[in-house]
């Protein structure tokens, strides 16, 4: 009974629409850039390595592609160690 009630009130969250949107975001980004997820990994590692050569990194770096309309940008967030 509780399961039935849960399903009735679950709304969007358990539907497949979310999965479709998430998958499309990834696929469209890579289609537009001609990249693959493997390339993204390589890009991330190399960017972090380059920055690490010059400054100390403190914490977990983030490299990702963000979409702005039909344009894409590489968004890099690398926490640096203070003195």
């Amino acid at each position, binding site marked *: 009974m509780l399961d039935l009630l849960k399903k009735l009130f679950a*709304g*969007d*969250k*358990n*539907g*497949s*629409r*979310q999965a*479709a*949107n998430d*998958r*499309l*975001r990834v*696929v*469209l980004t890579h*289609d*537009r850039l001609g990249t693959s997820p493997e390339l993204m990994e390589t890009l991330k590692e190399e960017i972090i390595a380059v920055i690490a050569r010059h400054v100390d990194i403190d914490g977990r770096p983030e490299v990702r592609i963000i979409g702005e*309309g*039909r344009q894409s940008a590489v968004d890099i967030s690398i926490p640096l160690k203070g003195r």
Partner: protein
Amino acid sequence: MDKKNADSQVIVVTSGKGGVGKTTAVANLSTGLARQNYKVAVMDLDIGLKKLDLILGLENRVIYDIIQVAEGECTLKQALVKDKRFPGLYMLPAAQTRNKEDITGDQVKQICDELREDFDYIFIDCPAGIEQGFKNAIFAADKAIVVTNPEVSAVRDADRITGILESQQFKDISLLINRIRPDMVKSGNMLSIDDLLEHLCIKLLGVIPEDKNVVVSTNKGEPIVLNDNTPAAVAFNNVVRRLLGEDVPIMNLEESFWQRLKNHLFGN
């Protein structure tokens, strides 16, 4: 009959993915405009796999085709099939036994230029794909309508097509969402209008709901836009009004159970 506009518009209706509703859109938008006394020509560029004649119910009146026009076997006027329902609506059929490499973009452009002299609107029914047929279809067009379904592979193809159109300097690209099911959007199992706009980032021309009556209209060769009582027809008519410059809000696609029952029992 003289055309109404000094400036004709050549509009390509494209999608990438096949079967999303390009031909249906061309048939209905052109019929809707012709009903408003505009002079409209429709060109079937799906050479080898023609469909526009069938959707418009004109398949028995085809004598010449676009390849014969391009090769000089007949004049454009001889090939244009006049729709008996509307004096301003003409169709230029595709060839069925040729293929898309048998005509060039320049030849299509030449035909469009000739059509511009007499017609207010020229719709090009673009074939699926991104090969020669597609390239021919977009070459002469002033604006593009990208048709998509709220479904992942259709959206992916629409995105690719949009990218190509942008790279070909198209400034006027709009989106026609076809076959949306509001019940499935509501239950979280279909991409919504906002989802599609978020992914594709082009301006919205219109939204056509899934409508069983479209199958019936295709069976009969009578574009659904002529049946004023059904949601898809209302939606297509709204798109026609938007093409003519009117600001028409996207219709509320969610009908309550009782409203549908009432319509079913008592008609509109």
